[in-house]
């Protein structure tokens, strides 16, 4: 998961490289699709932020629909393209007047390459480590305006800049449970003399099969998993004309329980991200929660 924008933490790009394996819901994983495999993943994410320490009483809602396509060139190398559709709305009080502003449309594309550098297979279990590198592309509008003028950065759909990203991911998976851990770092660059702060994300996720309680002796089955994730994000302060902006950046940590069902062709999952730590710089609107629903299809 990745948030773009400091005070907002809501231009959520939520680029989750899908995998052939039943990975965690809000994390990158080290597993890759098989050679020639396509995976399509559609997510719906709703984020609400309403805890504003300022008199403006800002309330923000974001609907994000990242559409992800994954292709395995080999069993080790894959590419991941994510196209996010975003809808943002901000209610705020300015000079005693309550008003709503917002925008909707295509966000910034994310193009990632992923390479599995380590894999060790065991009977009914596997352990894998991958590295990830890529960039997002400034396909989202970064200069949209409404009747009141140019929208604030938080409400823009894109950053306006191409931002490289590197990362790594580890997975241990067995028939009973799975551990995932991932780390990414995004080098946000400058566009229109504005630069979002660099972003470090980290995730540790655990999932446990709850159904079937006893595995059938033969064949495949639909598997239900309970998922618990810790998703963290640390973000530098943004810069405007090379000057740091105080009310940007900080450290967020979510605890994210979820449920997942995996079959041979489809994985469906739902999760809620609840903030357990919000060390935000300056006066920023705190995040209430994010709801996540997702479906993955492989072919």
């Amino acid at each position, binding site marked *: 998961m990745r948030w773009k924008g400091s005070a907002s933490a809501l231009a959520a790009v939520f680029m989750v490289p899908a995998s*052939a*394996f*039943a990975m965690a819901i809000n994390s990158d994983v080290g*597993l*890759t*699709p*098989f*050679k*020639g*495999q396509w995976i399509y993943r559609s997510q719906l994410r709703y984020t609400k932020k309403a805890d504003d320490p300022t008199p403006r009483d800002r309330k923000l809602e974001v609907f994000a629909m990242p559409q992800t396509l994954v292709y395995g060139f*080999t*069993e080790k190398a894959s590419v991941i393209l994510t196209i996010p559709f975003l809808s943002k709305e901000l209610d705020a009080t300015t000079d005693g007047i309550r008003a709503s502003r917002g925008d909707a449309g295509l966000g910034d594309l994310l193009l990632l390459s992923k390479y599995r550098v380590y*894999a060790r*297979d*065991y*009977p*009914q*279990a*596997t352990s894998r480590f991958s590295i990830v590198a890529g960039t997002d592309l400034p396909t989202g509008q970064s200069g949209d305006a409404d009747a009141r003028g140019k929208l604030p950065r938080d409400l823009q759909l894109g950053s306006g800049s191409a931002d490289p990203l590197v990362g790594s991911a580890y997975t241990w*998976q*067995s*028939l009973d449970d*799975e551990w995932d851990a991932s780390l990414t770092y995004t080098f946000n660059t400058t566009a229109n003399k504005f630069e979002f702060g660099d972003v470090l994300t980290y995730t540790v996720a655990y999932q446990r099969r709850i159904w079937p309680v006893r*595995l*059938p*002796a*033969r*064949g*495949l*089955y*639909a*598997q239900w998993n309970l998922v618990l994730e810790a998703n963290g994000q640390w973000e530098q302060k943004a810069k405007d004309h090379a000057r740091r902006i105080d009310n940007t950046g900080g450290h967020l940590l979510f605890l994210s329980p979820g449920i997942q069902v*995996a*079959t*041979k*062709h*489809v*994985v469906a999952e739902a999760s809620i991200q609840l903030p357990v730590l919000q060390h935000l710089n300056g006066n920023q609107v705190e995040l209430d929660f994010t709801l996540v629903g997702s479906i*993955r299809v*492989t072919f």
Partner: protein
Amino acid sequence: MRNGAAIVLVMLGLVLGGSSPVAAEIEGIRLEVDGLSCPFCALGLDKRLKERAGLEQIQIHLKQGETEASLPTGEGLDIGRLRLAIQEAGFTLRSIRLSVTGTVVRDGGYLAVASRGDGTRFLLFDAEHQEAGSGPVLSERLQRQLEQAERTAGLLRISGTVHEHAGLPPAIMMEAVEELSE
């Protein structure tokens, strides 16, 4: 005249349509695949085994980490392609068990079975003697049985686990030998 033609057609139908199908030469293929640990992972294995290794009727049993499959009648089994298919699916092949129907032949001085269909050869080991030496080793009883089958060109069904050795054809560590009537 019309009745005679009908009889000929019926007899032809019995000869063509009523003939029993030829049994598969390599059958009962069971693959132990390591790393297979979720239902969503199984599709890749299924597809690669079909496309790359030419297997069919694939059944994946997650709990055992085992995959059952068959070959079309007359098709040979290419162990290298099979291994590659599993690797491309992102897994590791641990073992192959199968049954071969064929005749006993000599291959480089070793006894082997040549499958009835495409002649794929498997050197023959005796499971009880697998640690007795570096080459294919057979117990005296099995050696005699196989040499007898070699002389008579009798049809055997041999079941066991497939092994590979550098520079040699694949080999079967035999678990069962069944003499078949032609």
